[in-house]
């Protein structure tokens, strides 16, 4: 892999390439966790809405509770 330091293009050191591989794994794991968190938030919201509707609340009343 190549890197540019100021005006010079050079090969990365072995250590830098290892760091890049480590970064790729770390970033992919964090991305997966972030997406899982967002999906859980969406699903929690849908479940909460359904439970409120089952209790007899209208959409407007649910919206009023949120604001």
């Amino acid at each position, binding site marked *: 892999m190549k890197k540019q330091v*100021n005006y010079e293009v050079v090969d*990365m050191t072995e250590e830098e390439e290892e760091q890049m591989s480590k970064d790729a794994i770390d970033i992919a794991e*964090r991305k997966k966790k972030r997406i899982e968190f967002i999906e859980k938030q969406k699903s929690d919201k849908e479940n909460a809405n359904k439970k409120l509707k089952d209790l007899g609340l209208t959409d407007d009343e649910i919206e009023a509770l949120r604001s």
Partner: protein
Amino acid sequence: MPGVLKLEGTNIATGDGNGAVTINNATLGSAVTVPSTASACVKLYRADISGVSLVSIDGYFNDSIYQYYTLRLDALRQDIDANNELFFRVNVGGSADSTSMYWNCANGNYNDNGGAGSQDRADNDGSDKSHMDNTWYVADAGQAAGSGTYVMSIAEPQQTDRYCSVYWVHTATRHGSSSGFRAIMGHHMCTIDSSNKVITGFSFFTGNSTNLSLQATLYGFKK
């Protein structure tokens, strides 16, 4: 390019195209030459970059002269079609520092097929690198005209009494090669817990080592 500044048809200043400006002062009856070095803003670095996985801009900071710096990354794209974010690390002693010392927060807005969206982000708590946008992918080769711009304000990177604060604005004309997200912007900051370190530069890279193309420019603003 040389140029002339006129007031009501009269030449009042000329530029030689290399930064020097000569002002003709009618009252004094003499010309004053202002050298480019007298400017409060000095261009320290400029390069067109492509075909590399990591970009390091290093060795240009001098806090005894400059109060703060503006680092622009323009026309930033990935050379291949890939879904990756952009990250940075500060350089200490010329090398990227991967100590767990990066704390981020950000918010922004985007256009999603005509709908307005907003996004907050603050998930880097003592990370070993700083992300540079709100989970957006760097525009890539799948969308020929898309690109991103980052305008960073860096204050006193060489001081060792306080944590370093970096603020930047990110705009992008595409999310990866998506046709849905065509206007993206966010403002961001990173606290770098580096109170005992002299920051010498910045290193930029994507999440999967993809090659990048960009124009990088660093300006210093004098005290």
